[in-house]
């Protein structure tokens, strides 16, 4: 059966670490810290009355998608899979440790920022000068909308009324109609 992955012993920089507890129906190689972690998780389950295993996995995934691997590959931490990366296993291990310690998402992200700098965040936090980064595309779009609206207003001139059709003798019209119907039969 599927075995749990011991991140501490992984030789390669894979993000195996994110889902160690899930789907291990009959054991296999056991992490020595598994019991203490399981106890901690169990305590959180009791406390929050929610399924802890799924929450832990999903939370780790979610947080790892909000961080970048800091080896210079520029990849999302959860997706960094390049070989011999010395950084992502360490970061993932830290992420698991932070989650296990019961910290909130913000505190966990903050601890990563303290260790690696603001570059570790996959998107700039919405504060200070970063607001310029977030808002500028929408400001540009809004200005563009105003410009297009102005252009349409300026260019919009109702077309002159169509000239009146030349008067045709009703008798001629009726003859043409009759001939057309004969053609189509």
């Amino acid at each position, binding site marked *: 059966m599927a075995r749990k992955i011991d991140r501490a012993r992984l*030789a390669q920089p894979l993000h195996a670490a994110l889902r160690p507890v899930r789907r291990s129906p009959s054991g296999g190689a056991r992490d020595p810290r598994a019991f203490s972690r399981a106890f901690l998780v169990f305590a959180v389950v009791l406390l929050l009355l929610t399924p802890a295993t799924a929450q832990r996995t999903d939370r780790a995934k979610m947080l790892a998608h909000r961080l970048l691997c800091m080896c210079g590959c520029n990849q999302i931490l959860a997706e960094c899979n390049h070989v011999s990366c010395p950084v992502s296993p360490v970061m993932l291990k830290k992420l698991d440790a932070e989650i296990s310690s019961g910290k909130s998402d913000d505190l966990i992200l903050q601890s990563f920022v303290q260790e690696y700098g*603001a570059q570790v965040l*996959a998107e*700039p936090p919405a504060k200070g*000068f970063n607001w310029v980064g977030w808002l500028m595309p929408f400001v*540009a*779009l809004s200005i563009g909308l105003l410009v*297009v609206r102005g252009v349409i207003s300026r260019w*919009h001139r109702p077309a002159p009324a169509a000239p009146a059709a030349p008067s045709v003798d009703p008798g001629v019209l009726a003859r043409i109609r009759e001939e057309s119907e004969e053609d189509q039969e």
Partner: protein
Amino acid sequence: MDLFGSFALLLAFVCSLYAIGAGIVGIRTKNQILLKSARHAGIALCVLVMLGTASLVYLFYTNNFAMAYVVEHSSRDLPYFYKLPALWSGQQGSLLFWSFLLSMYTFFVLVLNSRKHPELMPYVGVILASVQGFFLILNNFVASPFALLATTGASGMPQVHALADGNGLNPLLQYPEMAIHPPNLYLGYTGFTIPFAFALAALLGRYPGEKWIHVTRRWTMVAWGFQSIGILLGMHWAYAVLGWGGYWAWDPVENASLMPWITGTAFLHSVMMQEKRGMMRVWNIWLVFITFMLCILGTFLTRSGVVSSVHAFAQSSIGQWFFGFLLLILGVCLAAYFKNRDYLKSDNHLDSMVSRESSFLFNNLILLAACFATLWGTLFPVISEAFTGNKISVGPPFFNKVNIPIGLFLLLLTGVGPLLAWRRTSVDSLRRNFGIPVIAGALSGVVFYALGYRDFYALICLILCVFVTLTILGEFFRGMRVVRARTGMNWFSSFTELSMRNTRRYGGYVIHLGIVFIFVGIAGAAFKQDTQSAMHPGDQMTIGPYRLICQEFEARPGPNYQAERATIEVEHNGKSLMMLYPERRLFSSGNGETGTMVAIYSTVREDLYVVYAGRDPQSNAPIIHAYLNPLVKWIWIGGLVVGIGTVLAILPNQRTAIVLSPAAQPLPGAAVSPQPAPLVSHYGSQD
């Protein structure tokens, strides 16, 4: 052969200087002999660049390890197939490849138009020679691919020496798509030089009318088509090789390829305003300029190290050259515009707020907003550091949050725009054309929601995809019905007849359909799942409806690598389905690099994507990472449809419109439409 290549490039540079000089003097003095010789010099430089490139290819195939570039990017055990892609795998070779493709375009433009547009072509020749000249400066003096390995001998003279073997090609590039992805992308980048040259030539020469638009539309379509296919091939390569389960990471290199594609798309739409109504001349000419400048900007960004990228070439001073060239182009464009802007005056007039014209304005706005957002996100880390001193990252979450709403609005316009009539659209027409698609789109939303597709953006995207598909199919249906009524053809023949009578219009619809499919595939990303486990033989893991059973894992040799391969049996809903063989390769040359061969079971519903992620060092079991990626196949199907649509749109109309042909008569016994008017609306338009 290395000397031959070097001299060919040097001579090509001299030819480019002559083509520029003789062309300018010829234009000013109206000396036809000078103009002719300038054109010949332009053709000669193309041939010389082709010869130079061929000589480098020859050096790769003959394993000439006295050449520094060959040593860096090839090895004796590199399969023959990959010796050609090795040409563009590094800085110097890729720049030569750029020159080569540009020379191909230039050659065809100069030869095919040798007796046409006598007032326009001299300017075009000078502009193309100038762009080619810039790249030849790089090829000859900044990043020559013909540098030899040499050491200083006892006499103080350099002595050339050859190595026994080279470092080999980056394993990530040893994948069949790498043989076609970069050429397609580069054909897109270089292809945008042609409309740029014609636009600038028309402005400089005050060429009357919209002729330059007519001349360059097909060239622009060709460049756009190559860029589209190049981007999609790159996505597929990332998906199939990099093994992270995705296809687009908003990396600066990816963004650099997307931005000119977006502005090129905007141009292909707004150009119809100029052709039909003589409007937006200033806008169109600047769209062409911006598209070309974005090609150069992207190259600057990825080769200068200004922004960090996983694909970036080694940082070098070459970025400064591109930055200087970019400023030069901007200066020339601004000067030409301010000198001759009166030539671009047009009578802009909208008859109605609800019309094809206004939809094109919004289309261009949204496309430009998407381009700006992409450029802004790419550059914001640099801007932020300049203003605050703090380094930040702008990764996929930023781009997704900003560009997804913009993209959805664009998708909406894809459905709405083509059905609006030129000049004005009546309420009755709106009701007739949009009634069924709107109702069906709304109903599909309920169905998708009930089926569990509850991510907000993905749900909106799928609803819009249904809406747009039905509007497009409705257009085909109405046209085919008219053709059938007039000719008695069957549905398939009427489809062919309709499409070939107005290739541009119906090719455009096919492209739109392809874009819809791509959006369907992108929407699927919201429902992605993944799981990972170390698996001994007999171990199982489950993902979605699939059960993966590890049968065995083995080591096996390849031509220039050792592979570790797992054999995974896949069961679907309890029934054995197939075997998958994900593997990891360790290449013998270079620095012992590894490559991934992802095993993918692909259906239109979902992809089962299995990666051999390495081994658990203690248990020695392979670590298998499995992803369930819904709807991804629609992206590649969409790419194929976009390609077919592009080819169709490039083809000339095969027949004249039925309604204009007095010879066209209903076949005996065929149904006859009592209302011939729709024919006019279907065949009369050339968009």
